[in-house]
């Protein structure tokens, strides 16, 4: 029986506990939160053996084989280091760390100790995302990706979340180098990183505050971000984060030199784009039929998964956790290669550095005009 612990008993910990519960051959031996009441409420709602408010006590008493770290991002590094030092494998929620250096240190430590470590990029393991990966690996795109577009949006304007963050300067989001963006964009960036090697990467980022957020008094928060990524003048990608565009897409498009694919995470659909054109008017009539057929196929696949009780909202998380546990127990490959985790953090570092520089230049321009 694999002994699992969860550190940090907030919202995402509920998802972890629920998915771990669905996996055979493991048990939650302890949950821990600095706030004892939070640890207790998770313990009371799920089959959990003990609850703690001190991480060292959890490690000592419950002796977990794996620790899931679901605390606010700024504490990921320290907690993961402690767990690795103790000899536990670690699953770190996204964003993995606050910067690439921290990520490198953690991965090096895990490797040195012969322990497994992974990042919570669970969206990449949802049903349609897995089908997409299989198609790409089978050579559907041609000789490899030429261009990608990743949309990762968030309807910020209407949420109490935005109001709460804006009003509470003590909220941990303010202490992240990339503030709000850091907490949200890693899923969308990780999708791109999966298909890059990381050699001679160029990142150009442009961000601004939407008028809607400005009206709410959030001019210090960037909620509109556009990024161009270019690798060796071979593969390129656009990344879009928007709090205002509708629909608030979570979509990934990948084009090779032969065909393309569109993955829609919200609808759990994968659509093949045929590279070759049909002759003359046939191009106007055949593709719509083909798309209709593909959407019906997606509908059937989704319905089948639902009937088979395998269509949970967090199905990607279960798959990732299961794969991670298999890598621990059976020596199966890491579900997410370490290079991908590092590349995701490197791209995010580059984005935030540029946004910082932009902000500073705006501030200095404002100052110059004042003097």
């Amino acid at each position, binding site marked *: 029986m694999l002994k699992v612990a969860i550190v940090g*008993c*907030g*919202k995402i*910990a*509920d998802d972890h506990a*629920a998915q771990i*519960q*669905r996996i055979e051959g493991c048990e939650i031996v302890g949950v821990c939160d600095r*706030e004892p*009441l*939070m640890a207790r*409420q*998770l313990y*009371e*709602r799920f089959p959990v053996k003990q609850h703690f408010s001190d991480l060292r006590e959890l490690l000592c008493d419950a002796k977990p084989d794996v620790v899931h770290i679901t605390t606010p991002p700024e504490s990921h590094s320290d907690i993961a280091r402690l767990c690795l030092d103790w000899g536990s494998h670690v699953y770190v929620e996204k964003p993995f760390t606050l910067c690439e250096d921290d990520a490198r240190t953690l991965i090096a430590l895990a490797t040195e100790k012969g322990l497994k470590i992974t990042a919570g990029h669970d969206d990449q393991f949802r049903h349609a995302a897995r089908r997409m990966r299989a198609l790409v690996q089978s050579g559907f795109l041609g000789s490899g990706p030429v261009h990608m577009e990743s949309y990762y949006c968030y309807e910020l304007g209407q949420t*109490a979340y935005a*109001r*709460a963050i*804006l*009003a*509470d300067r*003590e909220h941990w989001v303010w202490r992240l180098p990339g503030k709000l963006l850091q907490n949200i964009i890693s899923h969308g960036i990780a999708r791109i990183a999966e298909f890059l090697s990381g050699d001679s990467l160029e990142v150009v980022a442009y961000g601004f505050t939407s008028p809607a957020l400005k009206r709410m008094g959030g001019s210090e928060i960037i909620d509109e971000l556009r990024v161009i990524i270019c690798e060796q003048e071979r593969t390129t990608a656009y990344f879009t984060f928007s709090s205002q565009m509708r629909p608030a897409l979570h979509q990934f498009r990948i084009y090779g030199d032969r065909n393309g694919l569109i993955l829609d995470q919200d609808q759990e659909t994968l659509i093949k784009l045929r590279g070759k054109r049909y002759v003359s008017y046939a191009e106007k009539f055949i593709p719509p039929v083909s798309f209709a057929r593909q959407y019906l196929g997606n509908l059937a696949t989704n319905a089948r998964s*639902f009937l088979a*009780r395998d*269509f*949970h909202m967090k199905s990607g998380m279960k798959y990732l956790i299961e794969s991670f546990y298999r890598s621990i127990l059976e020596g199966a490959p890491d579900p997410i290669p370490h290079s991908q985790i590092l590349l995701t953090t490197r791209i995010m570092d580059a984005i935030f550095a540029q946004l910082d520089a932009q902000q500073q230049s705006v501030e200095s321009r404002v100052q110059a005009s004042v003097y």
Partner: protein
Amino acid sequence: MGQTERDAFIIGSDELILVTGASGFIGSRLVSCLLNLGFLNLRCFVRPSSEVTRVEVLTGCRRDGARVELVEGNLLSREDCNAATKDVAIIYHLAAGRGEKSYPDAFLNSVVTTRNLLEASIRDQCLRQFVNVSSFAVYTNTKKPRWRVLDESCPVEKHPELRGDAYSFAKVKQDEIVAEYARKFGIPCVTVRPGHVYGPGNEPITGRVGIGTFGVFLHLAGSNAIPFTYVDNCAEAIALVGLTKGTDGEVFNVVDDDLPSSRNFLRLYKQQVRRFRSIYVPHSLSYVLCYLWEQYAKWSKGQLPPTFNRLRWHANWRKTRYSNEKLKMRVGWKPKVPMAEGFKRYFEACRNGVRDA
């Protein structure tokens, strides 16, 4: 406030009263009710993120000679709680994570906040009453004869984690922690449990009538009485329970008189606010559906969340009667705004909301 009423109160009109959740739907009415009762020294605790318009209502409450102090903070911060409870004689604790859908968020803003406030109140020894505002959501209604009266003697849900409702889980745990601190530290506490509080500011149709989750409104309560209390009536009940002598350690339910049946309410709503399609689901059918949903959620290991289940059915849609006898007898409360007048104001606010949408 007359001299006899004043004599029955546990504090004088100059003593300091703290209201948490003061910018909330009920909190803002409670502040104005306390001022109307002649209390002159109020501290209103609001979050910096509270809606400005609601905070403005509080500042607008100020009367001649009365001090309405606005304290900004978050009950999740112990320092903020210490500052808020300093020199306070009565705490009306209304702040809660009412709209939170997730268990951790609801718990954090209802239970951790309450614990922080209770601990802060121990430091400062001048507290004479801690008024814990709970809810009907904590009661279980299982194993009772049909139409039995739900009153203060009814048991509280033993397994709120199985109700599929983050809010009721948090409110049960809030009551537990209040009871624990009262027992351990001798904090004088009284609990008020309102039914569904309605009025301008809380326009949605209560889930006790039915649900609109599936695109069409399913009317589940039929001929059941709905435990309505108009917001001003409820605020007055809360105020009086906190002020009246001899209520320590007790529980008071709040519902108005002349409770309408769900069917009547829905008919009036459709007449006065807007027409929409609703389907009546008989009780036996809604019970079976809740049972099936519960079993499916279990069998599929959460593919559907356990939102509908028998515990929830019993608590919300089972035929029940309600009583406000204790409140009337012990604190001398009676609903000043009759149901017809309350509905008039409520429907008007709903109509304005529909127009603005």
